[in-house]
Each structure stands twice: as C-alpha cells, then as structure tokens.
C-alpha cells in the first residue's frame, strides 16, 4: 500500500502555453508525386467533411503551389488533424498561423 501525497503537486504552466491558446495554428498538406489526386480529394472530404468543390480546390492548391493550408484552429485541433492525415499517408505538418 502507499499513501497519496498530502498536498497536490504543483503544476506550473509556462506563460507561453497560456498565450499560445489564442494563436491559431495551420495544418499544411505538402505535395508529393505519389498520392493520387482522387485519394487526396477523398481524404479532404471524408476527414474534414469539406464539400467536393472545396476539397478539389485545396487538392489543386497542393498540386500547383506545393502546399496548402487545409485547416486553421487551435494547436490541439491542428495536432489531431496532422496525426489523422499521417494515418491516411498524406504529408502534413502544423505551424503557427502567419509563420509562412
């Protein structure tokens, strides 16, 4: 048996973590010569629920510009989406909005 600590351990959050809550984050999908256009459109529609026209616009942006911002939101949301997109085999990263 063991005893729990008498006092609650102190959790100190870095100041930047608190302010970072308000800064939007972008999810970026990068172009590669392998992923099929139809597959990328499918992922944007099935995962984000985007309408066909929006999914196609984003896919073409990736294809022609080399990258496209496919989502903007909190850091937590951005991380979740990046992880899901990696599950689909898309090359995705997250970055602070306005960084690039």
């Amino acid at each position, binding site marked *: 048996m063991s005893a729990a600590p008498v006092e609650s351990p102190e959790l100190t959050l870095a100041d930047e973590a608190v302010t970072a809550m308000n800064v939007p984050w972008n999810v970026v999908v990068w172009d590669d*010569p*392998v*992923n*099929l256009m139809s597959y990328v459109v499918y992922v944007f*529609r099935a995962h984000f629920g985007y309408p066909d026209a929006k999914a196609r616009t984003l896919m073409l942006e990736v294809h022609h510009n080399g990258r496209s911002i496919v989502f903007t939101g909190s850091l937590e949301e951005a991380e979740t989406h990046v992880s899901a997109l*990696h599950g*689909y085999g898309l090359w*995705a*990263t997250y970055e602070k909005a306005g960084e690039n």
Partner: protein
Amino acid sequence: MAHGFKRTRKGIVGRFEAPEVRLLQKLFSDVGETLEPEPRADQDPLETLVGWDEDVPEPTDPALRRLLPAASSDPQEAAEFRRLTDRSLRERKTAALRASSLALESEPVVLTAEQAQDFARSLNDVRLVLASRLRIDSTQDAERVAGLTDFGKADSVEEYMGVVYNFVSWLQESLMTALLKTLPSR
C-alpha cells in the same frame, strides 16, 4: 488482369485473379513488417508494456520516413509529436494492412465503405513504400515509371517493381472512384 473495384448495391466489390491476391497480400505484409517498431535493447519492459516512449528517433529508412513523416519543421516540435504518436500511427497502419489482407481471402472481395477506406490507406502506404524504393521524388520520376505496365516485358527488379507500382496505382484509382460515390454529394 484484375477488374478493379466497383460500387454495387452489396458494397464495393473487387474481383481478382489468384496471383494478384498473392501479390497484394505479400505487399501488405511487407509494408506491415517495415512498420514493426525497431526493438531497442535499452528499453524498460514496463515502458514497452504501457506504450511509453522516452525518445523515438526519426526513421533512417526513407520509405519509413514517408510513412511516418515529421509533423513540424521545428525539430523539437517534430520530436515531441513523434514521441507521442509514433506507436499509435504504426499500429493504425498495421491494423488496416492486416484487415485488407484478410478481406482478400473472399472471392469476390466485398467491402463496406469503412473497409474500403482501410483498403485505400493500405494501397496508398504500399505505393509510398514502392515509390521510395523506385526513387520517385518528382513528376519526371513518376513519368519515367508510368510507362512500365507489362509484367512480361519487365527484365529487371526495378522494372518489375515499376509494373507493380502501376498496378497498385490503377487499383487504388478504381477504389477511389467507387469510394467517392459513397460520400454525400454536395
């Protein structure tokens, strides 16, 4: 030659010849093996049990680096993200590969939309690995490989791999056509 996938009232149906089934199952299991976490001698058995990863290095194999890419251009952010997600990402991919391999045991192959999505992920992961081995890094590289479509004319391992790549690409395209029809139209 395979017939590809089609959307029917029963689900998404694919018909395959026996050698095609064997080829696809071999590819799925090869990619699955590539995704096995590298055993590390210094890891605490308890850490392994609870899935705690102290530090997960970026894979050295370029194919694996494409399957498990860096999530940020900031190396520290990328390392922390990898530490938290590497294991579950490998497991998710391996589970889809196994399910897809099993689905191929039926003749014809009949998939629900969810199973078809797993199948699409698996075909995509196979293509990412083959593309890495074939050094397809640009559109020009892709065009160089695109001409290889005849198994009978492939006279090197690389050419054979190119034909396999094109076969899997064609199959995935037929699956995407069927799968896109399952989404609500708007």
